[in-house]
Every structure is written in C-alpha cells, then in structure tokens.
C-alpha cells in the first residue's frame, strides 16, 4: 500500500463535505447519469437520498454510487476510465456505479481539460485519492457506529465488515454518517497488485446511449426559448469583414437577426488562436433557413494581409531550411567533421501539408448571456480557458461565467481553441437570449487552427563498419518547426545535431493530435529505415543497437526518453509479429516512437491487391504504464493507427489567394472503410508504472511504418504526404 498525503486536495474536499446535502453538484442533470451497460434489474434500487462524499463521489442510501467524471470526453473514453480509478480505490461494485459528467469547477477538480494525452496521467493520483478518501471516511463512520477502530474493519465491493465479528454494513447504509466525518489527512492507496477493476475491460458508460441515438453532444443541446445561429467568416486568411447586405438577410424567411460580432479580447492566451475575430452572425429558428441566408450573403471583405498560396508556403519552407530562425537546437560532437569522415552519407527531405482537424461533429456551442451572468454549454476540450476568455469578452467576473461540458464528437486538438464558444457568447449578448451556434463543415474546414505545414531534412553518416556516427535533422514549419531536438536518436549518436526552425504565415494553426510528433515520427522512422538498409542491417536490430548505446554510453547531457522502454516496445512488436519470418506476398514496415510519455512500436503488413497496396494487418506494442481499461485502450491505439495511415495517405489542405482549396469531404479526403487496415492487433507492455497518455501515441509511428511497408511493396520510397498525391498508388 502506498500512503498518500491528501493535503493538496483538502480544501476542496472540505468545501464539498460542508455542502453535502446542499447539492453543490446538482444542477447539471439535463442528461441523466449513465449506467455502465448494467441492466436496471441487476442494479441496486434508485436511492431516496444521496450523500455527497466528495467532489467525485455521491452515494445513495441504496448503495448506488454516482461518480463524477471531471474531464471533457472527446472519445478518449475518460468518462469510463476516470471513474474506474475512483471506483477501484473506493472499492465498489461497478455494476452499481452511475457516471455523470462533472461541470467545470476549479475548486473541486484539477486539470479539467482534454489535451496532450494528459487526462489520466495528471489525474491518476487525484482520482485514486478521491476514491481512497471516500472509502476511509465510510470506514471511519462504520467504526464510530460500532465503537471499533478502522483497523478492525475491511471494506470491499461496497460492503464494510468487521474482521472479528459478524457485523457488516453497506456503503449505502453508512453513507449518511460519513458525510460529517473529517477528511483524513493521509489515506492508503491500493497496491497495484490488488487492483480488481483497473486492468479489466469495462464497456463505455455511454455506449447504450450512443447506439440508441440519445442527445449527448453539444449539437444536440436544447433550451427553452433558444434560437439558432450560424456565422460566416472571411473566405481567406488576410481578409476581414467590412459590411454585408444586412437588410436583405434580415428580411429572409426564418431569419430573426443578422449582425457583425467582434470577439477580440484583451490579453489572449494560446487557446484564443483565431484568424477571424470579426464575423457575420445570422440568428434564426431553423438551421436550413440559416443555411439559405448564408448562401444569400453578399459581403464586402477587406484585404488586410497577405493572401498566401501553397506556392508561398513551399518557398518559405525552402528558405527556412537554408537560413531560417532556429527556435531550438541541440549539438553533440561535431557533425560537420563526422559527415566528412563518414564512409557513407545519406540525406533525405520529408514534408507534410497543412491539415484540418475535421472532427465529425462540427463546431458548435450554446450560450445564454444575461446582464450579470453567462452560461455556456457545449463541446470544449478546455472549459477553463473558455470560461476565462468569455469573462474577458463580456467584462464579467469569472464567478459569473459557468461552463458545462457535453459529450464531444471528436477533439484532436480542434476544441482546445475556444473561439466558437466566444462567438456563441457574443451572439447571445447581442440578442439578449439563449442561442446555439452551429458551424457548417465548410465554416469549420476553412476557419484555420490547422495542423502546420512541415518540411525536414535528415542526414546520416555511417563509418566503414556501418555504424551510425553522424546524424542531423533540420526541420522547418509554418509557423513553427516539427523537430524535438532531445528525442531519439539524441543520446544514441556520437555526432548529432537538430534544429527546429520557424517561418511566418498568417494561416492560423493549432495543436493537432500528437502535435509535431505525427510528422516527425513518420519522417524520422522512414529515414532510419533507409539508413538501416544502407548499413545492411535489419531495421529493428539497427534501432536496438542505437538504444543500447543510449543506455550504456549516452551521448550528451540528457535525452527525453527511456531507452529501455523504447527498446521494449520494439522487442515486443518483433516477437508478436514474428518479425523476420518471410511470408510470400506480404511486405512489412516497422516504426517506433515516443511521445506523450508513452512508447509505441508498430509493424505494418502490406499486400498488393490488383496492383494496389492494402494494409492487411497492423501489429502494435505499447508501453503506457498501467493500462486502466485494456479494451478501450486498444480502441485508442487502433484509432491512432487508422488516423496516422489515413492522413499520411490521403489528407491535405492547399491554398490559393489565402483560401483553402478544400472545404468539405468531397475534396478533403479522410480514410474510409475500404482503405482501412483489415486488422489491428494491440499488445501492452505489462508494468506498474503510473499510467501515461494514450490518445495520441498510437498515431505517430503509423505513418513511418506505412512508408516503410510501401517501400517494400512497391520499391518506391515516399517522402511527401499525402503519399497518394505524388504517386497515386492507392484509392
């Protein structure tokens, strides 16, 4: 058992205890809680009375337990896995658990955001502590009741028992008495070996609602008296709205109002990225009528900046790689000398275009702004940032702004940015009533916040014994470079240099699932494949040699990965995929990458069908520490693989006169069923390390393994994404 100090959270626990019965968390029940797939008859009865144990736990008199999931649910399944962690330490029977989305409450919860694959990693201790604290308080209440010590009792599956006696009491029966108990200063956490729930596959708590089409998402949110709104932003980066045919639009059927809003705020933060703070808003009663009004818009767009094109971008990247501004660098040994002395030198350049996030649920948000309050409900990955920005926009104290989270139809970084929430608030303020803003796909795809465009040049030198003695990478991006100077192979090569280079653009960009890693992993891992080939070595053995060097005799002061865990996933994928075994007609590529504190190695098996390469099977090995919910974790990795292959293969945004050429899925290609891998098998390294991220790490290696398998299958190396554009071999 691990002792853990609860002080850090004491204040908030006490606050909620004091409010017990007062229903501090009540009020966000517009979507009733969800049961984890339990049939109602198997569950304990619906309680007459609920007792708030702490911000995460509410126990009913029948023993039913409500667990609040603090973080936004974007499909990473935290709404199931976060409460699982609480339930484990609380020690309750999962079938009696009901899960509810918690509102934004910085007093009760920390890190209520969905980004950087951080939800579980950052909340692991807090969630365990919440459960353990609750369990301890219930035990203390029972001890008091029976005039015993806590050490005389055991608690398991929602029942407290006397160790040397017959008495037992359920959590539901004692919960009322636990409410007054002082929050313990120290609690015992379980030894991971004793986990009963963590490590078992628990089904998505909202699964049943999803498959029956219940209104869970922001787009589904309704409020009495609510109007609908749509926006029109300038068609190109570098343009601003001047005026529009306001009267004509206002006179259209179903249109209640039309105006220009300005969402500029003072002291914007990173989540306020937005190329179009001024836009046209149209308010009405039905979506279709608003769409017609959008079509009828005649706006005067003013050119206020450069209208960039893809050609501009390519030239800027060329230039940046020659003499661009270096943001971050690393130098070990002397690469220039080492390349001169090297027996073989190889240099390759890789690139990847701007990409849109394209969450399947278009941007939307509900807002109800009154003279002295603002209520926001919808899909956001960063409720706290939204709250802050809305307070700034409306010039309102933070306490007057509330943000509640709905289920989110995809995040991928898009909803880290809060402009659509601000827009809803600005529209609601103007019309003086509740409103739900909805973007069309075109609005969303042309709004920006894109994945930046990247180009990197890699160079490697081998000595006469085919050892890697020199390695350099220069990577540029608009507006920031993709390189991680201290990641692999830093630490593993005697002479190493890395430069991350930036260059300007007025196309707005943002974090996109596994920022930078999604490109760098593919480029680096495809390059290493070529280097291994040049060295006449097996690509896995070649990498393992490098990790060996990083472990035994690391180069430089530090590097940002654990070489043995990196090597560990490669070894696991090698074993599971029977790497080295030759299967006629099956072409294999391998890649491994470390990001978001997790390690993933992937092997892709490709076959040629009617002259087209088809991904037949993907083998994945992941090390993310303790796996909370294995089947859901596999789902995440599988999704990452599909996402990685799909985007590397098909997706890109190109620009002309400041505007993207692709506005919808007819021209912007996302992977489809027929193009998806036929099978994706996922294996986890078993250890007791505190869990790390999973939402992103599955993606980056996929494009590298894909490029390497494509080479084996077609004899051609692919350097520039999307691979289908310069070599239309698929689709």
């Amino acid at each position, binding site marked *: 058992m691990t002792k853990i100090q609860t002080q850090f959270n004491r204040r908030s626990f006490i606050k909620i205890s004091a409010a017990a019965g007062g229903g501090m968390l009540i009020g966000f029940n517009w979507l009733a809680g969800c049961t984890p797939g339990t049939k109602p008859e198997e569950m304990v009865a619906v309680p007459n009375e609920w007792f708030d144990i702490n911000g995460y736990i509410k126990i009913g008199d029948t023993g039913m337990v409500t667990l609040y999931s603090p973080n936004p649910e974007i499909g990473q399944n935290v709404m199931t896995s976060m409460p699982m962690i609480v339930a484990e330490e609380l020690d309750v029977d999962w079938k009696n658990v009901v899960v509810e989305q918690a509102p934004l409450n910085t007093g009760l919860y920390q890190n209520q955001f969905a980004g950087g694959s951080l939800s579980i990693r950052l909340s692991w201790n807090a969630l365990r502590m919440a459960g353990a604290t609750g369990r301890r308080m219930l035990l203390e209440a029972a001890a008091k009741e029976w005039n015993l010590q806590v050490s005389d009792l055991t608690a398991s599956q929602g029942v407290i028992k006397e160790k040397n006696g017959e008495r037992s009491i359920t959590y539901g029966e004692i919960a009322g008495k636990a409410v007054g108990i002082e929050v313990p200063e120290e609690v015992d956490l379980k030894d991971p070996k004793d986990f009963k729930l963590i490590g078992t596959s628990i089904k998505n708590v909202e699964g049943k609602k999803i498959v029956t089409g219940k209104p869970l998402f922001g787009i589904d949110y309704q409020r009495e008296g609510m109007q609908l709104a749509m926006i029109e932003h300038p068609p190109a980066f570098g343009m601003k709205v001047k005026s529009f045919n306001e009267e004509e639009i206002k006179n259209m*059927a179903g249109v209640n109002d039309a105006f220009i809003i300005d969402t500029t705020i003072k002291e914007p933060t990173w989540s306020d990225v937005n190329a179009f703070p001024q836009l046209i808003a149209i308010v009405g009663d039905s979506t279709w009528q608003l769409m017609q009004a959008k079509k009828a818009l005649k706006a005067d767009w003013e050119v206020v900046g450069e209208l960039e094109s893809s050609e501009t971008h390519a030239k800027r990247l060329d230039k940046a790689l020659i003499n661009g501004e270096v943001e971050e660098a690393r130098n070990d040994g002397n690469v220039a000398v080492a390349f001169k002395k090297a027996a073989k030198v190889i240099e390759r350049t890789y690139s990847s275009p701007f990409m849109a996030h394209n969450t399947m649920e278009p941007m939307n948000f509900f807002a109800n702004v009154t003279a002295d309050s603002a209520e926001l409900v919808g899909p956001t990955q960063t409720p706290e940032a939204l709250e802050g920005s809305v307070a700034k926009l409306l010039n309102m104290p933070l306490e007057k702004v509330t943000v509640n989270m709905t*289920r989110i139809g995809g995040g991928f970084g898009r909803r880290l940015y809060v402009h659509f929430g601000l827009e809803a608030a600005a529209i609601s303020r103007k019309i003086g009533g509740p409103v739900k803003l909805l973007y069309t796909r075109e609005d969303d795809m042309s709004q920006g916040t894109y994945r930046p465009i990247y180009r990197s040049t890699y160079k490697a030198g081998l000595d006469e014994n085919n050892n890697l003695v020199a390695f350099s990478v220069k990577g540029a991006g608009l507006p920031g470079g993709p390189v991680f100077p201290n990641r692999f192979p830093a630490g593993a090569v005697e002479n190493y240099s890395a430069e991350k280079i930036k260059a300007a653009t007025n196309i707005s960009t943002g974090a996109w699932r596994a920022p930078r890693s999604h490109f760098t992993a593919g480029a680096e891992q495809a390059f290493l494949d070529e280097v291994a080939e040049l060295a006449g070595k097996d690509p896995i053995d070649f990498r393992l040699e490098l990790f060996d060097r990083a472990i035994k005799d690391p180069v430089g002061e530090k590097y940002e990965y654990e070489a043995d865990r990196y090597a560990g996933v490669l070894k696991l994928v090698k074993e599971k995929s029977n790497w080295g075994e030759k299967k006629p007609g099956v072409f294999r590529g391998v890649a491994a990458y470390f990001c978001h504190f997790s390690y993933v190695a992937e092997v892709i098996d490709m076959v040629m069908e009617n002259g087209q390469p088809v991904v037949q099977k993907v083998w994945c090995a992941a090390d993310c520490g303790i796996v909370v919910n294995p089947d859901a974790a596999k789902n995440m990795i599988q999704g990452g693989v599909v996402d990685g292959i799909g985007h590397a293969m098909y997706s890109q945004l190109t620009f002309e006169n400041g505007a993207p050429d692709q506005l919808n899925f007819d021209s912007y290609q996302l992977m489809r069923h027929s193009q998806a891998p036929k099978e994706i098998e996922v294996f986890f390294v078993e250890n007791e390390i505190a869990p790390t991220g999973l939402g992103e790490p599955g993606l980056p290696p996929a494009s590298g393994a894909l490029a390497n398998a494509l080479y084996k299958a077609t004899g051609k190396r692919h350097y520039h994404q999307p691979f289908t554009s310069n070599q239309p071999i698929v689709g």
Partner: protein
Amino acid sequence: MATFNLNINGQKHQVDVDPSTPTLWVLRDHLNLLGTKFGCGIAQCGACTIHLDGVAIRSCMTPISVVEDGAITTIEGLSKDGDHPVQKAWLEHDVPQCGYCQAGQMMSAAALLKNTPNPSDTDIDDAMSGNICRCGTYVRIKQAIKTASKL
C-alpha cells in the same frame, strides 16, 4: 412553406416547412429527433444516414418533399429497446470512440444486413465507405457487422 405528413419510426408527424428542407433538419430542428447527425451536408460523410423504406439514404441531401410517402426509420426507431443486432454487436465490440458518426454507421450497417445477411468484407466496404469515422473505428465496425450478422 408546405405541410408534410410524415411516417417516422412508425409514428405519424406533421410539419410545416419549406419543401426544399433536407430531411435531416426536419428531424433535428422540427421533430426533436436528434440521433441523426450532421457532418458535411453534401452526402459525403454518412453521419446523417437514415432508412427510407428500408434503404439507407443521406438525409442531409434528401428534401423532405421526396420522403413524404415513404416510411422513415432513424436511429431512435432502429429498435424499441436498443436491441437491434447491430446495436447489440456495437456494444459487444465497444465500437464507439467519440460516438458521433456511429448512428450513421449503424444505419448503414443495418440496411446492409437486411439485404445481405452474410456480407463479405467487400460487401461491407461497399456499403460502408460512405460513412466516415474520424476516430478510426473502422476495424471494430467491420467486426461488429460480422457479429451482428450472426445474431
């Protein structure tokens, strides 16, 4: 504006809308049937898939005037208790990630299985390639369709 008498999930509804209004928005805005989703509006993503007389159609591009005489089924009406084989299989395989595309995926899958009770991989690809899943649940969807075909 015109009045339309609709038959949705076995129930009669009457709406007063512009004849060009896509069925998707009649369902969502006028009838409060929110399970059918909006993804692209141009019949490219499948999020809005419903059945018209048992055939999968994209409701975002189907004007309400076209469906008046037919029987419409939406995800809410796929089964009474959420126990259509496709729904059961989806739960068994824990398919959804964000879940947004899944109503459309299930409607396409249900229509496929109706005509092709034992679909091959190619049948599945052909029937499902109009349904995008940005979360990348394709592998599980395929498995779930095969499971559903046996239920």
